[in-house]
């Protein structure tokens, strides 16, 4: 794990914009949160739809190794307590808040246009190699799919899942790590399997999760 100085050095290409975003966007009180899109019945039906294919394999070892979406410690000024997860959908980053104005940052894939949301939730459940139930629309397109797939390497849910509140949304792995940094999901937040495996033990049930969807600065 790089120390904070080397991270800040690596952080430089992203520029002050990210620091500014951290200061302006993440330090505001939670009471100011207002979902831009709340989970709707329609969203529930199509969660895990577009871009989620079972016909791919990604093991627990797959991580994002370079570039801004690689897991790294960063400078992160926030009023949130250490241990809190802050997700910024516009930047496609998940921050695990650490002491001393630092955070462990992971690159993520987020909901596609119209399926991004913000809010305050808690991790209500965790699962290793979670099961997957393709939505009916996906069965229509790929009728050869099983209607239920027990967890495993070919499963689009990936190696780990953390369930967010009572919503249908999750922080989970993926069998398509190339989609990290993209807006392709139906509202879930996906990490490369190796990264979600790294995050999983750091996040106990009950962890506060702040999802922000702010305009790019």
């Amino acid at each position, binding site marked *: 794990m790089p120390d904070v100085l080397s991270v800040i050095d690596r952080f430089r290409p992203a520029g002050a914009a990210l620091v500014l975003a951290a200061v302006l966007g993440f330090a505001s009180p939670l009471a100011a949160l207002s979902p831009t899109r709340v989970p709707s019945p329609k969203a529930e039906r199509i969660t895990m739809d577009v871009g989620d294919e079972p016909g791919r394999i990604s093991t627990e070892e797959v991580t994002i190794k370079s570039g801004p979406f690689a897991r790294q410690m960063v400078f992160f000024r926030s009023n949130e307590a250490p241990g809190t997860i802050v997700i910024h959908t516009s930047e496609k980053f998940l921050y695990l808040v650490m002491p001393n104005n630092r955070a462990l940052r992971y690159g993520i894939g987020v909901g596609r246009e119209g399926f991004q949301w913000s809010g305050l939730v808690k991790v209500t459940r965790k699962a290793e190699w979670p099961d997957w139930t393709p939505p009916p629309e996906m069965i229509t397109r790929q009728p050869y799919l099983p209607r*239920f797939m027990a967890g495993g390497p070919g499963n689009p849910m990936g190696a780990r899942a953390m369930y967010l509140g009572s919503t249908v949304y999750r922080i989970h792995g993926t069998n398509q790590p190339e989609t990290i940094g993209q807006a392709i999901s139906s509202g879930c937040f996906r990490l490369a399997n190796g990264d979600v495996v790294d995050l999983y033990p750091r996040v106990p049930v009950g962890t506060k999760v702040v999802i922000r969807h702010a305009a790019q600065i």
Partner: protein
Amino acid sequence: MASKGGGMMARYAAGVAVVVLAGGLAGCMTEKASLPSSSSPVAGGAYQTIPSDGLVGRWGLASYRDEKDRARTTAMARSQCRNAYVIKKGPTDGVMMHVADDPKLYELALKRSGDGKTYLGFAAPPGDRQDREVLEMSSNEMTMRFVDPDANTRYGTFIYVRC
């Protein structure tokens, strides 16, 4: 997939002439792990075909990879009848089903290999890469897996429970 599918169809059409499917259930598929009795060998004696009528119907379909997940996967398959996998009889006594990664339906046949294993697939020798191996079959439940190791790893073992 289209070209692959077309190739599959051509392959089936070329081979279907040698596939002889016995008619009727003839007491098949009534006991778990008791596969249908074979019909006469096909020309050349390479393999035998088996009546496939017992596959026709609506099935709850689910898959697993780890044996510890089998029981609950079977339960999940049983609960999937609202979105059932429908198997219809094919034009030449096979059944209309999908192969891996292809949304088109093809006529597939049950085949028995010399070592006693049963496969479901195109009119090719049993154990062909595009076949499914039939692990268990009864009137109400079937267990299959793809012969292709890659497809088997990705999709796992399929459990069909009759609706």
